[in-house]
């Protein structure tokens, strides 16, 4: 029996074309992604994730600013989606390590992110993620991470 997660990872793809993970279904199948409220916008191979603003993602109510953990979790989710999309496979990629750089405080508005796979190895995948709000050229945070493709 195929679970919603497996079905999302395998996707359906165009007839004759490569199967691509169904990222919206993947987000829907992961409880924490639903909790975080992450959405995805796929235009061909260009994937942008969206974390709509919600008061429960605030870390500093004085400023107010988004919680660094929520921004980090959002970027990690973006990386996982990109790896699932590019590397494929029936299991979720696992994070090995991540390094987050906080560049500006995350204001109480929607946040966007995009991931670039810098190296798609057989087992290890290197990913870079940028997160921004109003202006793509003014990122609020960046993430570098290594992910493991197969279950190990």
């Amino acid at each position, binding site marked *: 029996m195929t679970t919603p997660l*497996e079905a999302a990872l395998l996707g359906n793809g165009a007839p004759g074309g490569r199967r691509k993970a169904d990222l919206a279904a993947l987000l829907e199948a*992961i*409880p924490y992604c*639903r*909790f975080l409220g992450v959405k995805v916008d796929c235009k061909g191979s260009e994937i942008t994730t969206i974390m709509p603003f919600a008061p429960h993602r605030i870390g500093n109510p004085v400023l107010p600013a988004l919680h660094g*953990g929520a921004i980090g979790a959002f970027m990690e989710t973006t990386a996982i989606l990109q790896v699932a999309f590019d590397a494929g496979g029936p299991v979720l990629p696992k994070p090995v390590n991540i390094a987050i*750089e906080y560049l500006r405080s995350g204001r109480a508005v929607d946040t966007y992110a995009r991931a670039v796979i810098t190296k798609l190895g057989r087992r290890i995948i290197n990913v870079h993620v940028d997160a921004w709000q109003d202006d793509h050229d003014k990122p609020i945070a960046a993430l570098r991470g290594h992910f493991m493709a197969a279950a190990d």
Partner: protein
Amino acid sequence: MSDIEVNAGTPLAHVPHAQAIGMAVVSARDGVAVCTVPYDEKLVGNPMTGVIHGGVMTTLLDNACGVAVGSKMQSMAMIATLDLRIDYLKPAEPGRPLFARAECYKLTRSIAFVRGTAHQGDEGDPVATCAAAFMITGIAGFARPA
């Protein structure tokens, strides 16, 4: 050294996102803080295994590091994470709470350096480790720590 006014398992009422994931401060004193997040289905990152999402670990470690910095400061000031690096050593066991112990081992006028460990009861068997740096941003009416 200052003491943050906390008792065992004090919820982080002033941090909405920490509260949303059920995080609580177990202890915070002299630059060492312990925070915890209970296991919750809504925090699961892999529905096949029930393992908590790495992002929860990120939030827990980030917050524990921040509390550790706060507990080392003489006066009140705001802090902001500059960078956070996490090694995921092994998947967290489903059904059990997560703990993070963070230690601010160096505090200057403008920067705090912190390291932390996430575990599930046995600190010698961590699920993740981290290193972080924070910027001390003074706020109006409050001096930066001397």
